[in-house]
């Protein structure tokens, strides 16, 4: 579970802290441009590092420094609570004069306060005192291998690398896959690959997956992969109402955008149900859903996360906003494009009357 995210000098985020401690689920609201998606992009940076991206230049550009302020360091920190231990991974970047890309100023990982490794510029120091040099533009996290008895780096890499950080584009979710993957893409376009990987590794997940889909699409019967071409498979969804002789099989890509969202939610729910609790940040999960479906959809994701996972949503939708409490909602505000994002829990706002009316009147996020 992510306990805290700290970001400094990255786009609109200056000295920004998101405190998620004790919150299996949370909502982030704010006007367009307030920084909601930027929070997801910060997490995506950690995700990329832990999935093996080793060069800084592929993740950070000069334009990412707040107001192009490359003379000051950019810093990211994430605190995690995993299996009873507290991990902190931090990395900061600097931009040397006349340089064409950012380089690493500092990088460190600690567990329960003790250093696993620390790094200043090119010098990396491991917990046993061993030091070695590394290219200033290459992350240490993906390249350090621990002794077999040590698992700290592996645990952090597995958690951050498997985070689900999505702003789904249902049109890209075709249901076609060529190989399994546990790394869901930001647009969820490789949904079929990820479902294939989950059900291949943990077939028991199908029960939770199908039960969820059936709860929201009552005539859902089954989903299966059929061979397509030389290397690929295509997801086929079968619907039936009572009589198996009267069924309808359709390719996944023929489903509506909202129905694809349900299948995506079923995937997240199944992940949590089979003991692979995931961190999921979903940009506007209510997109494509009908009004009557939003509440149950959000509540379902919140409940799935409460089984050891974590779910963070952003939204402009009133029904989604109502499915979170004042304590689990964070409000991002920003006076102008020249000002930094400010984050406050909704509980700090003394709004009067109905929350949605207060939001419409701009009394909270204005």
């Amino acid at each position, binding site marked *: 579970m992510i306990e805290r995210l700290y970001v400094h000098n990255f786009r609109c985020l200056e000295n920004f802290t998101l405190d998620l401690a004790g919150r299996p689920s949370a909502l982030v609201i704010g006007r367009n441009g307030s920084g909601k998606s930027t929070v997801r992009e910060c997490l995506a940076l950690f995700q990329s590092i832990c999935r093996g991206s080793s060069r800084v230049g592929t993740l950070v550009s000069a334009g990412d420094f707040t107001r192009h302020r490359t003379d000051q360091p950019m810093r990211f920190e994430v605190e995690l609570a995993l299996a009873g231990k507290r991990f902190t991974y931090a990395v900061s970047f600097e931009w040397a004069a006349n340089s064409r890309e950012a380089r690493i100023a500092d990088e460190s990982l600690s567990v329960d306060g003790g250093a696993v490794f620390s790094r200043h510029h090119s010098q990396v120091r491991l917990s046993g005192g061993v030091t070695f040099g590394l290219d200033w533009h290459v992350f240490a996290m993906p390249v350090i291998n621990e002794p077999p008895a040590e698992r700290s780096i592996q645990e952090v890499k597995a958690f951050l690398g498997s985070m689900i950080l999505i702003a789904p584009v249902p049109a890209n979710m075709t249901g076609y896959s060529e190989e399994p993957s546990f790394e869901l893409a930001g647009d969820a376009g490789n949904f079929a690959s990820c479902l294939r990987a989950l059900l291949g590794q943990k077939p028991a997940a199908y029960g939770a997956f199908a*039960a969820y889909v059936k*709860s*929201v699409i*009552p005539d859902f019967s089954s989903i299966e992969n059929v061979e397509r071409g030389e290397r690929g498979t295509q997801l086929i969804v079968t619907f039936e109402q009572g009589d198996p002789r009267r069924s309808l099989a359709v390719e996944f890509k023929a489903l509506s955008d909202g129905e694809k969202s349900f299948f995506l939610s079923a995937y997240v729910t199944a992940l949590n149900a089979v003991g692979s609790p995931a961190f999921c940040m979903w940009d506007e999960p209510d997109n494509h859903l009908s009004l*009557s479906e939003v*509440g*149950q959809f959000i*509540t*379902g994701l*919140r*409940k799935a996360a*409460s*089984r050891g996972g974590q779910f963070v949503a952003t939204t402009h939708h*009133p029904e989604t906003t*109502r*499915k*979170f*409490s*004042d*304590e*689990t909602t964070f409000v991002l505000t920003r006076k102008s494009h020249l000002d930094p994002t400010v984050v406050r829990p909704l*509980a700090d706002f003394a709004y009067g*009357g*109905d*929350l*949605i009316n207060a939001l419409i009147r701009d009394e909270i996020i204005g």
Partner: protein
Amino acid sequence: MNWYAPHVYVIPEDDADRQLADGFVLHHAVNETRIQVVPPAGGWPHVLKTFRDEYVRKLRDYPLAHVVMLIDFDGQYESRRAAFEVETPHDLGARVFVVGARQAPEALRNALRKSFEEIGTSLAGECRAGEAALWGHEQLEQNAPDLQRLIEAVKPILFGPA
């Protein structure tokens, strides 16, 4: 919501009641497909009006529908309870429930030092377990007669199989 299966609508008076109700639904054992918390009505008279204008007909059309109105009694339990009884058609009374805090949920929150959502989840847990520690709090104890009816009618819907 499947209108042809047993289901429950909750009409909260305000945002505090809405968070209590949503916390109830968040309990891991509650079947969220059988309960819908609708937007806050904006005061108890509006709860009553919403019930009268929108839900009396729904209860008649769908015999498996139930309505729970979550209001603040503002220290006037008897008179407010009576106002709702007058507006509830006799033939629908078994599927209509009015519960809430003796004063307002804020008093409950301040006394318990928990969020509305956490209180709602705890209340659901007690309903499921047949306990009444929190339901017996001085802010909630007046609900006892309705609560017994509510648990008998709604528990099998919300805590039963999906």
